[in-house]
């Protein structure tokens, strides 16, 4: 029997009795960032593979959401900061060892990029849009000329945006539950899956919905494989990680994780999409909504459970 007490009575705010420094703002940003990454990835990919006209929602409609999503996400990140007035310090240096620094700079690039792409496609929303000023018209012509470069930038930067948050979590020594290199790819695939789901929801073309539902099915399958590997990794690692994994294997977060993330967020939409492929009649909104729900729950549960997990000193 072991009894471990801090007898001098430490009760540092947000640190004791267990770590709680990150609240809803962080999972909310993680979800929005991943979703934005997924949408931009497919938009760029469809342009580069010449399927722009086949999949208009992916290339022109869904990206209209991304500037809003990113600005909202950045706002949530800002809300989380405890020393807000100094946020600009993020942009006075690049720290290659700090994924948070990579993220700050990538967002600085991706956000204007998403605004530019949305501006190029503004006529999806306002068919008679007129830029009015010459300079703006010239800018539109300029960006339209270099669309391929913009598409390349979207594909590459969106992958960084989608994966860095997972890498960020996995690089924190102090949280054994996050200390797995699977987390980066898991968040990336989850973000792409969310992007595909958003495209399905926004599309008016049956063919496009089918195509992205199939992509989503593949991504869900990959996510399930990654989750299995994540647990295999924990259970074959040090005692600390075996203990951390218990949070999902009988501990506090078992039910939320397996029910909300795996069953409702991954397995059910996969079954629904499989049934759709077999031409059974399913309300096509069901699967993408569940996927998005699963995405936000994944990030919330991992963010909170990770803060509970700790080393035994």
């Amino acid at each position, binding site marked *: *029997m*072991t*009894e*471990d*007490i*801090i*007898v*001098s*009575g*430490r*009760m*540092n*705010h*947000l*640190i*004791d009795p267990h*770590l709680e*420094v*990150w609240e809803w703002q962080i999972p909310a940003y993680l979800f929005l960032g991943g979703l934005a990454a997924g949408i931009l990835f497919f938009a760029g990919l469809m342009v580069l593979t010449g399927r722009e006209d086949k999949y208009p929602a992916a290339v022109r409609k869904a990206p209209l959401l991304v500037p809003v999503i990113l600005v909202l996400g950045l706002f949530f990140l800002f809300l*989380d*900061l*405890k*020393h*807000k007035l*100094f*946020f600009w*310090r*993020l942009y*006075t*240096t690049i*720290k290659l*060892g*700090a*994924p*948070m*620094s990579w*993220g*700050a700079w990538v967002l600085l690039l991706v956000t204007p990029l998403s605004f530019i792409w949305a501006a190029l496609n503004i006529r999806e929303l306002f068919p008679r849009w007129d830029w009015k000023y010459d300079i703006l018209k010239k800018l539109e012509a300029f960006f339209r000329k270099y669309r391929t470069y913009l598409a390349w930038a979207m594909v590459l930067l969106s992958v960084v945006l989608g994966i860095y948050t997972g890498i*960020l979590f996995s*690089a*924190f*020594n*102090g*949280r054994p539950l996050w200390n797995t290199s699977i987390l980066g790819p898991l968040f990336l695939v989850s973000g792409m899956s969310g992007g595909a789901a958003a495209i399905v929801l926004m599309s008016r073309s049956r063919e496009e919905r089918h195509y992205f539902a199939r992509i989503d099915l593949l991504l869900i399958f990959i996510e399930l494989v990654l989750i299995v590997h994540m647990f295999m990794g924990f259970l074959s690692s*040090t005692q*600390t990680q075996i203990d951390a994994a218990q949070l999902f294997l009988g501990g506090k977060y078992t039910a939320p994780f397996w029910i909300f993330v795996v069953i409702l967020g991954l397995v059910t939409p996969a079954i629904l999409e499989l049934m759709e492929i077999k031409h059974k009649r399913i309300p096509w909104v069901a699967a993408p909504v569940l996927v998005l729900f699963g995405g936000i729950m994944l990030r919330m549960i991992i963010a909170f459970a990770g*803060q509970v997990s*700790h*080393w*035994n*000193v």
Partner: protein
Amino acid sequence: MRYAMAIDTKKCVGCSDCVVACQTENNVPLGYARDWIREINQGVYPHLHMEIRSERCNHCDNSPCVRSCPTGASHYEEGGIVKVTKNKCIGCSACIVSCPYDARYIHPDGYVDKCTFCDHRLKKGELPACVSVCPTKCMYFGDLDNPESEISQLLNKRLHKVLIPEAGTGPRVYFLH
């Protein structure tokens, strides 16, 4: 110059003088602690074993907090002391989340704070507050790079351990058995 601290667990009685001295010396806000006393009891009566430790930031060689800071607010200073530059800290809590020892906290003013090995006292040639008040004189502080220093000689003579060595952090606070 590599500063380190050694604490003789055979002599520590857990009186918490080090905790109070630190809070007084560094104007630690009420309710916060930069160092603390941890008591670990193992076994079943009457076969009991107790260890008392005075813990704080370990000013690690390979500190995850310095590595994860996006603004460079967490940095190394002379002697390997890990410090936080207040006006570069954005309060993102990345360092707090990355510390396996839970050594950091967010100061009510918004920036991140922790033990500084009392570097303001070191500059004047004094010892850290906690070391200087210990009634059993079980705490030692000095330069590991100096083989003649008290701490180097103690670490040579006595069996010692660090906390969570497997975390790869390279802590500089040693506990003498």
